């Protein structure tokens, strides 16, 4: 619908004079088409790229078991992911006879995070300091990354073991994938450098059960078993 209006001067048209042309292009169909294209793009694409969490698991070799035991008792924190979004932790070695050694916590800010931030104070402060320095542009991205990973290796920083309870055959009473991600999330927030996802043991299940029953099962412990 491009229309070219020719305006007549009305006086029969003097020769030699340029005729005034008013060119008017109607853009309505163009707008229609663009709108359609925009709608198409809005429906068929996503703006957000998915985020990822990089994890590296230990190899299946037997070494890992020994290395796990090497962890100093004061550094070790074991997090047990239970059923119905519940979470427990114990410090150091499990004390099977004392049910209060297991503490119930939560995925919220005042649960695991408070504990880990407290335990990992030196590293957290170091990382915070580095972040400040990066903000003031004293250090660039690459050195920041290397310094952070160095800070996370500080001696005395906690080693966290994440153990998730497996559901029963019907898929109930176990930890879910979200619980695992939440727990891993806390590791990132609290700048924990050393953490691992470990299989849950009989002992851990017993601890949780004993905690439920407020220590009623403590008497049933075979003293010989505890020694092992």
């Amino acid at each position, binding site marked *: 619908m491009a229309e070219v209006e020719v305006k007549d001067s009305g006086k029969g048209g003097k020769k030699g004079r340029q005729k005034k042309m008013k060119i008017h292009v109607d853009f309505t169909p163009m707008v229609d088409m663009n709108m359609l294209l925009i709608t198409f793009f809005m429906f068929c*694409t*996503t703006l*957000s790229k*998915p985020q*990822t969490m990089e994890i590296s698991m230990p190899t299946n070799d037997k070494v890992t078991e020994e290395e796990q035991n090497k962890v100093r008792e004061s550094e070790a924190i074991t997090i047990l992911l239970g059923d119905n979004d519940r979470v427990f932790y114990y410090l150091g070695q499990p004390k099977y006879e004392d049910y209060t050694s297991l503490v119930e916590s939560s995925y919220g800010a005042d649960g695991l*995070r408070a504990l880990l931030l407290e335990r990992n104070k030196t590293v957290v402060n170091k990382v915070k300091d580095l972040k400040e320095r990066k903000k003031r542009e004293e250090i660039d991205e690459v050195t920041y990354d290397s310094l952070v990973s160095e800070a996370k290796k500080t001696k005395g920083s906690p080693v966290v073991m994440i153990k998730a309870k497996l559901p029963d055959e019907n898929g109930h009473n176990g930890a879910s*994938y979200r619980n695992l991600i939440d727990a891993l999330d806390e590791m*990132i927030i609290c700048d924990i450098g050393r953490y691992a996802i470990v299989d849950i043991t009989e002992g851990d299940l017993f601890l949780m059960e004993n905690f439920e029953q407020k220590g009623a099962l403590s008497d049933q412990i075979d003293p010989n078993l505890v020694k092992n």
Partner: protein
Amino acid sequence: MAKVKVKRKSTLIDMTAMSDVTVLLLTFFMLTSTFVQKEPVQVSTPSSVSEIKIPEINVLRILVEPSGKIFISLDKQEDRVNVLNAMSSMYGVSFTPEQINKFRLATSFGVPIKQMPGFLDLKSEIQDQTLKNYGIPCDSANNEFKEWVRAARKSNPDLKIAIKADQATPYDKIKTVMSSLQDIKENRYNLLTSLKSLPAEENQ
């Protein structure tokens, strides 16, 4: 009586400015967005504070839906063909060129290898509808999942593995996937999450 002459006004609206705006919007959408990948099942990923972005190419996506069914998607067509050929020679299932071509064009797959030829013979609409009923077997008796990933790794050594699982998936399903990956010495992989803002920054 003199008639009141209504002056005829042109009702033309200049659409040029409008067109400019729409073109700008269109450009914005084209440049910033990525196409939604067709996935056999919809899963909602858990949120995390991690801000690492996933690369766009060379990704092997493992889709785990809440009941534990596993689907794999590969982004390169030649990888898909290589993987299928490797699997067909391993399990002794042969495919016709048409079937291979159909497999090449499908982004994600997740059918037990024995049923694969029959599945590929179906029309693509029916394939889309029924794919969610299958899933790659991943148990100790028949772990095809392991072989698929191993074949994919062989075909493309730069492949990055990403697990996309629903947040309600029970832990044991995730564990079977993880331990299968561990068995074939794939110890570094990504877990896909959606973004959640960092709590420390919220307080500031």
